[in-house]
Structures are given as C-alpha cells and as structure tokens.
C-alpha cells in the first residue's frame, strides 16, 4: 500500500469515526426522548400492552388542520354543539388541545378481557378540571405507582350479560372506568385494568414496541400517514359483518391494517397479512371480484366512479393490499346528502 493510499484510508476512517462519535453523542443526549420512539410509531405506544388485539392511531392536529376537515365542518355544522359541550365540561378543545391519540383494544389474557379498551391522548389538558369532573361523577382518586389514577365504578354498571344477569361483583370491580395522568400532557382513559397496566408499563415491562412483528407493520403504517389501525383479525371477526366469500378466507388472515393520509381527501391502504401465499392468492381473487362488482354498481356518479377506480389491489406473497383514494368531492356529496336529510327542501348540488 502506498503512502498516499494509507493517508486516504486513514482520512476516510477518520471522517467515519468522527461522524459516528458525533452521532453517538447526539443519540445519548437525546436518549430519554428517543428511547420510546426509536422502535417507530408514536411514543404513546409505550403504554400499550405487547399483545393488544387492535391498536389505532390518529395525528389529531394533522387531521383537524386538513382541508378535508374544513370541508366536512362546512358540510356538517351540527357537530359544533357536541364539541362545545365537551369543551365546557372538560376544558379540552378537541381541535387544538389534543395532538395525538392512540386507542387500544385488549386481547383476552390474564386479567384482561376482550372488550377492555383504552385511549391514550397527548396534548394540553387541564388536569384539575378533568379531575373535578370525574369526582362529580363519583370517581375515586388513588395513587398507583406514584401516578394519580381516577377510578369510576359507575361507568360499567349498565353492562348486562347476554342472559340478563348483571356481572358478578368481582368482575365489575375489574371492569371499572379509569383515567390516569401518565405524564404531563399525556392521559390514559379506559378500562381501569388497562389504565393501571399502562401505568405499570410506564415503569417498565414489555409493551407493544417489543413486538417485532407488529412494530414492523407500525413503522410501515406510520410513515406518511396521519391515521392508522392494525390488529389481529381474530379480534375483529366477531364484530365484523362481512360477505360470505370474505368470511371463508377469514381463518387464513393473521394481521390486518388500514392506514390513511387525510388531507384534501383520504388516501390510504388496507392490508391483510395471511398465513400463507395460497390464502393471500385466494383472498386477492375474492377482493378482485368484489371490486369488479363495486365498479359495476358505481352507476353514473362520477365521484363514486372515481373512488372505485382508485381502488388498487396489490401486494404479493402473504400480503394483500388494497389502496384507495377518496376524493374531497365525495365528501361534498355526502355533505349535500346529509343536508338534504336534515332539510328536505334544500336543493341538491
């Protein structure tokens, strides 16, 4: 090796070494904030159990500031009243005070029931006002792992089992409603079991970010989208009312996801991960058939036709992906329809 080459190798390694050292310093300085998000997805995922059945996320600020939201607001003015009432009671302006929300539905395991759910919201909250409101409704304040948790046993009392009985007392205790102030600017609301679990996870433990399969999907969904949901299809199946052809494919579907970017319209992708290539191929055939049927039935309405044409079936291997684009005009159409229903004399566009 000549001297000049040695100098070059040394110079190149020096640049790399200095760069890596600087990167490591940046990484360690910002570790406390990035530790939660380095796995990908919103930081609130650290409060979600590792084996959650369904997780959904929305960037509320982004959605509320979207052109689509402005159009819908103009088309559906009646929604204002509910929002004002909510703000008056809680002090939360949904449009400006909430940054992000993560919703989670638990999978049945241990103390968790399949219907246990929770929403983790980050933003600017008036903790005192929220606590007062909860107390007014009979909530008890408790300190759980140095966090303030408001538990209301009242919320679940209306639940009646299918056979007409009320749930046993022990079960009722488990299924109470709770709110916890996890960190300044982050609250968790939902089933008390899940909320307490969220407090546990804040102290450490296996949250969903340690689930590589789910997080791989989260990273894919989180990029470029302001709303998404994913889950194990088994959790969705009992609630879903799907066509028979699709239902026949259900046992083969493992994970499902939907991601959307809401701006002028809604652009997104619906994706299913099947258990094998053959199941994916079968599911693609079924969806293709449904798409053809849908396009036939789109009629002469150009907006609906445009939406149907935007549906693209894709994916390969075990993945079945359906991308879609709902144009803003379709929402205008829906707004017109809603107005006509509320005032039948109004002229249609």
């Amino acid at each position, binding site marked *: *090796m000549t001297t000049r080459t040695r100098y070059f190798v040394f110079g190149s390694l020096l640049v790399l070494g200095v*760069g890596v050292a600087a990167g490591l310093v940046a*990484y360690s300085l910002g570790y406390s904030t*990035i530790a939660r998000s380095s796995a990908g997805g919103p930081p609130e995922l650290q409060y979600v159990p590792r084996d959650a059945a369904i997780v959904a996320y929305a960037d509320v600020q982004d959605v509320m500031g979207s052109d689509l939201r402005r159009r819908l607001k103009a088309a559906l003015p009646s929604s204002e009243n509910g929002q004002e009432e909510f703000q008056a009671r809680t002090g939360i302006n949904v449009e400006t005070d909430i940054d992000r929300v993560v919703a989670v539905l638990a999978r049945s395991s241990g103390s968790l029931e399949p219907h246990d759910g929770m929403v983790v919201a980050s933003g600017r909250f008036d903790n005192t006002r929220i606590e007062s409101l909860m107390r007014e409704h009979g909530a008890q304040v408790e300190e759980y792992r140095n966090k303030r948790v408001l538990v209301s046993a009242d919320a679940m009392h209306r639940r009646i089992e299918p056979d007409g009985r009320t749930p046993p007392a022990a079960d009722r205790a488990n299924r109470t409603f709770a709110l916890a102030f996890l960190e300044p600017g982050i609250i968790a609301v939902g089933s008390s079991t899940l909320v307490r679990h969220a407090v546990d996870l804040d102290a450490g433990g296996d949250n969903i970010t340690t689930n590589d399969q789910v997080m791989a999907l989260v990273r*894919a969904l989180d990029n470029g989208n302001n709303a998404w949901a994913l889950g194990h299809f088994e959790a969705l199946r009992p609630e879903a009312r799907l066509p028979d052809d699709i239902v026949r494919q259900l046992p083969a579907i493992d994970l499902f996801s939907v991601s959307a970017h809401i701006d002028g319209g809604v652009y997104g992708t619906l994706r299913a991960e099947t258990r094998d290539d053959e199941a994916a191929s079968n599911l693609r055939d079924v969806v293709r058939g449904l798409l053809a049927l849908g396009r036939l039935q789109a009629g002469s309405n150009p907006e609906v036709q445009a939406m149907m044409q935007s549906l693209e079936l*894709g994916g390969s291997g075990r993945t079945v992906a359906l991308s879609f684009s709902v144009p803003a005009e379709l929402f205008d159409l829906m707004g017109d329809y809603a107005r006509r229903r509320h005032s039948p004399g109004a002229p249609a566009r």
Partner: protein
Amino acid sequence: MMEGRTAPTVAASALRVFDLSLGQMLWSRRSVFLAILLGAPVLMAVAIRVLGARLGPIEVNGRAVNGAAVFGLMIWLLYIRFIVPVLGVFYGTSLIADEIDDKTITYLFTRPIRRSAVLLGKYLAYLASTVLLVLPSVMLVFFLVVPTGEGSLGAAFPSLLADFGMLTAGLIAYGAVFAFVGARLKRPLVAGLVFAFGWEPAALLLPGYLKRLTVAYYLQALVAHERPQDSPIGMLLQVFREVPPVGTSLISLALIVGLALWAASRAVEGREYVLEQ
C-alpha cells in the same frame, strides 16, 4: 532451493493482492467518476440544508417532511437504487478487465498465487475503496440533511448505522455478482448495466417469484426507512412492498455472494486472459 515451496493460501495471497490493488483502484481513471457520483448527493444535501434554512421544511406531495425522512428518501433512491448498483457494475466488472486492458495481468498471473486469489484480492480492494468512499459520503449527507425540518440527529442515528450495514451489504452483493459477470463475459459492462438497470427494476415490479432473482429484493428488507405512500409512486412502490424477513435476506445475500465469487473464481482459473490483451 525453492523447489519444495507451495503456493500460499488463497486468503493470504488475496490480502497481498488487496494491498497492491487498493491504491490502483483508488487512484484510477474511475476516481473522477466516483467523485462525481458520490459528490452529487453531498451537493444536493448542501442545497437542501441551505434552502431548508431559508424556505422552511421541504414538502413532498404538499406535506412537510422532516430531515430524517428526506435522508431516508435519498438513501433509498440515490444510494441503494442508483449509486450502489452503479459502483458494483463499474468496479465489479472491471476487476480483471482493467488489468487486461492495461496489460498488467501478466505480472499477477506469473506469481506463485492462485488466480482466484487475484480475483478475491481485487474484490476486497473494490470493497474497501467503495466502502471508504460511500460511507463518508452518506455520513456527510446525514449531518447536512437530517437536522432540517426539525429532524433529530440523535433519533435518526440508529437508522444511519443500519444504513451503513445495508449499503455495505449492497456493495458486497453487487460487487460479487458483477465480479462474476466480469470474469465470465467478454463485454461485462453492457451485461452489468442491463442487469442493474433493466432486469432488477422490471423484476421488482412484476408479480411472482422473478424478484427473487434480484439483489435489490433482498436489500429492501434491510432498508431502515419507509418509503412515502401518499403519492402514485408511493402506491406503486407499495405494490412491491413485500419483502422477505431480515434473516432470510441476509442468508440469501450471503448465498448470492458465495455463489457468485465461487463461479467467478472458477471462471478466472480457467480463462486465457492474455488472448484478450
């Protein structure tokens, strides 16, 4: 007195050839081309930094994106899909061809080392020279681009290390494939360019198993950054979003590299290169 001596091992000989070839490769005619190729993203990064400071965050399809996302795009579109295959083609196919063109192959093939050691040594020199040029280039782009649009250097740093690994894997794999092409074919550059910029993009878009006959398919699994999905291109990319698991990709890439280098070594051992001088 030297009658009983046996040729040194292939590995030992390859290291000697590497030592001899590294400088030749670094200071060759291609260095200018390499400098342009790797300097262009750095210049782009400087432009992004300057424009970002003056005009605010960069927008992709009408949406503001942070520096880490822009860096991810640059890694995918510039480095993985263009620079790494180009370096692989131009350097990999020329490992032996350059020595033939310069008529210096004789000096290497009349020494007590196996011809495969010459190929492997030159392959190692290719790897060292490209890695030592590509990674600093990526490093500069990272520090220039990531802080724009409120991107965090610390948060993006782990992905930079992953990118280093992936780019190195790409250079290893493409280099091996094109080393074989260079050792086997008389006009390797044309065949290499067709493979990298004809076959690979086409096979990745085609449904079915053809994509498994590309290097890019396995490299995709190692990409730490996600591609944007809110544009027609994003949707198109989404179609071939299917990627094998990281473990499968690494094993497949290792197999590709091993097989390509073995076949290239076989070709070099049996070919009469002086006929082409």
